């Protein structure tokens, strides 16, 4: 219902595949080039490493949104919530790892809990000191939330803008809830001051490189999963649902189940992105739940070109590159530019940047 033309996802062609692997290779070189002496012409600064690492996690989020919106027509304006929940799960692990090194020196309680007078760790914090458990929760909690919300929404056939508003309200409600101190998630300030992860101090180049490569692997993996889904028979059903949901249902498919499956996978990917994002930026707070963040992520996909997986990744990188450049060069203009992107892409570039280069003729 969202797109006017039915673009069937094509098998990535050979040239595209070459370009993609080339891009991955270039990205993979970044932490290595960072190790070169600063005098070298090929040296890449720390800033580039950390910001590219961040963008890679954004690209995973964009893929997640694209799978739901570009392929299945589910425009979720609450994917930032799944991203943030994944981030919070990882943040909880990082908080537990601080241990007695916090400002109050308490052996188990994070600083904010000591400050707020918690007698002991709340039950839902138990187990987060173990990395595998925390990582599992970073994927499980967003997936579970998507399962519940998706089940309720798709079952009663809430589609289109209604679903968008509903998911936006969801992330808004979560934001309000996480701002509360007695939720046990650090309230306004969230989590920060992380020390280490998997035995590596987070400030070392090694930890940065490891996180960078982990994100890159996650991006490639997510891309692979999304490609497998989109070229499968299921992928065809997804696109059919996007373009004519009632017809698909009358043909005997359970559109509720299919949509639920995609929505949950998408939320899990968003959670994965959040979990990789938090250790790299070193902070997570309720601001990540703000509806503006979710809708900004949607515009990455729109700019890159929805319904194409490359588009989502390209969009995430290009819009964020623009943002990084503009917010330092002309901070007042950034919101005009972002707003302008929303308008321009929807009116003039429905197929996004990728559409500009695609040689395939429509219809």
């Amino acid at each position, binding site marked *: 219902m969202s797109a006017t033309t039915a673009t069937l996802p094509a098998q990535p062609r050979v040239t595209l595949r070459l370009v993609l692997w080339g891009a991955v290779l270039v990205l993979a070189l970044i932490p290595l080039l960072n190790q070169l002496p600063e005098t070298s012409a090929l040296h890449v600064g720390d800033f580039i490493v950390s910001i590219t690492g961040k963008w890679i996690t954004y690209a995973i989020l964009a893929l997640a949104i694209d799978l739901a919106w570009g392929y299945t027509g589910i425009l979720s304006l609450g994917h930032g919530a799944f991203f943030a929940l994944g981030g919070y799960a990882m943040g909880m692990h990082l908080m537990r790892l601080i241990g007695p090194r916090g400002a109050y020196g308490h052996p188990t309680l994070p600083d904010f809990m000591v400050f707020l007078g918690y007698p002991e760790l709340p039950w839902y914090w138990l187990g987060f000191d173990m990395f595998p458990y925390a990582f599992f929760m970073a994927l499980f909690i967003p997936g579970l939330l998507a399962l519940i919300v998706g089940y309720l929404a798709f079952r009663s056939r809430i589609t289109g803008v209604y679903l968008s508003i509903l998911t936006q309200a969801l992330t808004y*409600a979560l934001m309000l809830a996480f701002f509360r101190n007695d939720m046990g998630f650090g309230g306004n300030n969230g989590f920060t001051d992380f020390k280490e992860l998997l035995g590596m101090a987070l400030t070392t180049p090694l930890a940065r490189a490891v996180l960078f490569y982990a994100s890159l692997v996650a991006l490639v993996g997510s891309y692979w999963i999304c490609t497998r889904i989109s070229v499968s028979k299921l992928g065809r059903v997804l696109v059919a649902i996007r373009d004519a949901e009632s017809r698909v249902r009358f043909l005997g498919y359970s559109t509720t189940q299919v949509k639920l499956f995609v929505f949950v996978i998408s939320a899990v990917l968003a959670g994965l992105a959040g979990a990789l994002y938090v250790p790299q930026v070193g902070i997570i707070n309720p601001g990540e739940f703000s509806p503006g963040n979710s809708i900004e992520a*949607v515009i990455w996909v729109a700019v890159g070109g929805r319904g194409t997986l490359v588009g989502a990744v390209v969009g995430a990188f290009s819009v964020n590159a623009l943002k990084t450049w503009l917010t330092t060069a002309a901070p007042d203009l950034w919101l005009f530019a*972002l707003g302008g992107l929303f308008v321009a892409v929807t009116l003039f570039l429905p197929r996004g940047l990728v559409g500009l280069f695609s040689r395939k003729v429509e219809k």
Partner: protein
Amino acid sequence: MLLAILLLVSPARAQDAFTAALPGLAGGFGQIAEAVEKLGASADPRALPLLQALQEGRLLKREDGTLLLQTDAGTSEVPTGRPAEAGDAEAVRVNNRVRGALRGALGSLQILSTNPEERLKAAEDVFRSRSAQNIAPLEAALARETIPAIRAQLELSLAASRLASPDNAVRLQGINALAEVTDQNARALLLETKAQAPDLARQIDGAVAKIEGRLKVRQMVETFFQGLSLGSVLLLAALGLAVTFGVMGVINMAHGEMVMLGAYATYMVQEALSGTALAPFALPLAIPAAFLLAAAVGAVLERGLIRYLYGRPLETLLMTFGVGMILQQAVRLIFGAQNREVVSPAWMQGTLTLGGLSLTANRVWIIVFGLLVLGLVVAAIRYTRFGLEMRAVVQNRRIAATMGIRTGRVDALTFAFGSGIAGMAGVALSQIDNVSPNLGTGYIIDSFMVVVFGGVGSLAGTLVGALTLGVLNKVMEPYAGAVLAKVVVLVGIMLFIQRRPRGMFALKGRAAEA
């Protein structure tokens, strides 16, 4: 007036009481306090300046116990009034006990003042001091008081003073009087007395139960009013949306920014008129100004952008979100990021008292305004030619066009109309919220919830939805806190749409599947 009081309280006795009490002021703290209470009860006109002097440290004491009164005019002896030298005289010192006695005594003297405000304040002071000494002056004052508000306070104070009496019969009188008062302080006072008068416990419990019952009812009414007030804010914010989204099916995420523009229009009108004769009417004049500004922006938005995206709701959503961002940033650059002050006119300030309830005046006005705007919208859709054309286009665009209706023009006008209503909502919000560039963002999600909850395309649904959500929010607030109440309402709506996916007042038939 003084004559009346002197007739009630025998003049000779009053004279005696005044002079008899004086030596106490030269004694220790206990004696001073006692003397102060006696002076307060004396109702003597000379006592007031004396006690005021004591309170302000202008009452001096010589070694021999003579009292001196220091005023701007000079120092004089008490009670003869002969001029005197201050010399080595020291100020009479007061402690907390004396201060308490002073407050009551001053109060019981000031309740005779000719100034109603002073009388009311004095009556309140007497209530706090609570001494059996005050019973007589209070009864006297009550006999002559005509202003209802002061009478009520006097009765409360009298009852409180009676509770302090050692005589159980008098106390019982006080208890019975307090039982008729709906006041948190009366309840606290009764509970306090219960500890001191165990043999009256049964009566006191009865009185407390009565008060609590009435307090509960009052609180419920007040909560309900607050809910209605929040509901009417939601109604104002959602009405415009009910037209653009509900009637046209255009999802306008810049709706909140239209509200924001309306609030800034109010600010601009106020600034433009400040200093002129029209300044007091700035707010009423801002209503059409806000409507026109928001409507103009809405018309441009519809003709320039939105019409190219009809039939593509998700794209419209994203595009209008971008427009909202641009509008917000433009306003931020023009007016600055800080809040702008919009002054409330005098008739919107203060509180209205309605049968013991105090309601904030501007909240009452917003409820009235919300209903007026609703009436306006209903009338415009039902009774005007524009409304008829609008309904025709919504029902069947092509047939409407063949009938000669210029559908494009109707679209633009409808969208402008919805935006204009949002602008008028901005005028109301400028009175209760900060006028800042992101004023609208706080309302947009709630407004959509109202429209979805009430039923898309139904104005009655919008009204009921807004008021229901407002009241629900306020009813839950004491139990769950403001934020959690909001979360619970949002979750509640999500579950509600499970049962009724198209809202409370769903459209039936083919139009519903559009």
